[in-house]
């Protein structure tokens, strides 16, 4: 019954769509390897004929990238570390216990994770400024953890719930304490969930722009997204050096793309879990 001709047309459409969607990513990497003089030549180069690393060395020359990288790493590690611990504990609570307030707690975290930074950053700025934590890792991390932990709980809850409680009970019948049973049986099975949640927290903290813009006003304490914006602005006061800007963007994007591909499946199912079941 299947008709062949439309399928070829559909395949061609699919390839065209793919090219359209990949093009900006390709263009970023492509431009990063083209010398500035060539990029300035008004005719776009669709392939780096004489690839150069000069854009990268130019980008890294003043060392500000590394200070931003250090800041980003510090913030991200703090957020990932605390998010995983806090979310893990809360996920165990809501998936292994029935307690009063449980449903309210779940509703609260789902609503809170939807709140946009745009709606809170004025107050967050005021709060962090009043305790003198602007331009610090702690200040921005507290806000990030509060923003990221709700969804991490939701994600991890799925993993904890996916491990049958019977397994633990069987181990307890065999003489382990409840805590031992949990640590020896459930915890190892949870490892993929912990990795996925950790990577999710990493992506959020690493990419965040809005809150960082408000809470990290000084240049020497900027995270990478702020640094990249500042780099474009500084460059734009002369004629923008697009080669260097693209090299900078590539440096910021590559680790994200790698980590993103690791958790992508889980992210999708977490966001729509209730619906997929139908």
């Amino acid at each position: 019954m299947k008709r062949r001709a439309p399928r070829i047309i559909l395949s061609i459409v699919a390839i065209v769509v793919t090219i359209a969607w990949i093009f900006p990513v390709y263009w970023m990497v492509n431009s990063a390897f083209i010398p500035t003089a060539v990029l300035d030549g008004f005719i776009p180069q669709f392939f780096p004929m004489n690839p150069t690393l000069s854009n990268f060395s130019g980008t890294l020359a003043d060392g500000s990238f590394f200070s931003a990288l250090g800041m980003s790493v510090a913030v991200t590690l703090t957020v990932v570390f605390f998010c995983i611990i806090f979310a893990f504990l809360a996920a165990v609570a809501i998936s292994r216990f029935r307690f009063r307030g449980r449903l309210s707690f779940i509703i609260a975290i789902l609503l809170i994770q939807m709140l946009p930074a745009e709606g809170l950053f004025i107050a967050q700025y005021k709060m962090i400024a009043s305790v003198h934590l602007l331009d610090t890792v702690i200040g921005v991390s507290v806000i990030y953890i509060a923003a990221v932990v709700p969804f991490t709980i939701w994600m991890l809850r799925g993993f904890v719930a996916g491990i049958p409680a019977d397994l633990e009970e069987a181990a307890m019948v065999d003489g382990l304490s409840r805590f031992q049973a949990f640590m020896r049986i459930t915890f190892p099975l949870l490892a993929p969930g912990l990795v996925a949640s950790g990577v999710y927290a990493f992506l959020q903290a690493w990419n965040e722009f809005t809150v960082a813009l408000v809470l990290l006003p000084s240049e020497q304490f900027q995270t990478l997204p702020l640094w990249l914006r500042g780099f474009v602005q500084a460059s734009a006061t002369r004629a923008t050096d697009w080669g260097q800007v693209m090299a900078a963007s590539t440096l910021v994007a590559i680790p994200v793309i790698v980590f993103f591909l690791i958790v992508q499946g889980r992210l999708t199912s977490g966001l729509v879990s209730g619906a997929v079941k139908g």
Partner: protein
Amino acid sequence: MTTPAIETIASTPAIETIGRRKPKIPYVLVVPAVLVIVLGAGYPLVWQIVTSFQEYGLSQQFGQAAPFVGLANYIELATNPELWAVVARSLAFCIITAFLTVGIGILLALLMANVGRVVRLILQVGLLLAWAMPVVAAMTVWIWLFDRRRGAINYMLDMIPGVDMNRFDWLATPWTFFLVAGIIVIWGAVPFVALSVYAALLQVSEEVMEAAQLDGANGWQRFWGIIGPMIQPVIAIVLLLNLIWDLRVFTQITLLKDAGSKSGDFDLLGTYIYKLGTSAQDFGMASAVSILVLGITVALSWFYVRRLLKDER
């Protein structure tokens, strides 16, 4: 990648005996998360609500007490045509981009379902790469693509006979500015929609489709009669998420404004609040607008949460 049993929300029995005997444990477990959420989101939220009823301008920044002014900030907002323009623009932008995103996403999901394995994989990898791009990096690339003098887009459009796009400045007028912003937002959001809807399409069983085919239903009827209803829950949820996300496009608009005009005609709610808070230093008004944004978000999120909790007891 193995799919965890995230879907089995309600089916796993909790260990209720333990829960009954030591009712304190779950509360202890949620304490750290609750504390950090209260500190990082709860307190700012309350502060924001309180401040929206206060006069909180420059003099309050320097320590003067903030007097309560009741609904004065809200009344000022309601009678401010500039704000209404921003609200109308934001809602229009949000609704148009969200619906286009979901529409295109559904089409791409159907496309994925109707091509061969290899082509499908290529398409999926392409979408994933776009999805993975950090927003700020994506913005710099798009701004470079739309650059008026040396951008690839003007160059390619200019090659079409009869089209003169040489040095066309996309970011100079609000219409083209928001067209560019919309393209960027849709480009970034479509992959999530397409992959989610495709996952839902996989749940539509082969037998049902064959039965419908045997009963003489054509492709169009099969789509509206069977596939549509079965993927409807997923579509509803991704549409809600996109509406919520497209209200918060602060990063995109800020970076586009960096490259283009600083004028207020290019503001959406996020950048408008930022401007009220930073250049005007009027935290009372900024808070009142924030409450508006939060209100819209919570109203939309409520449907989302109800969907997610459908089988939660």
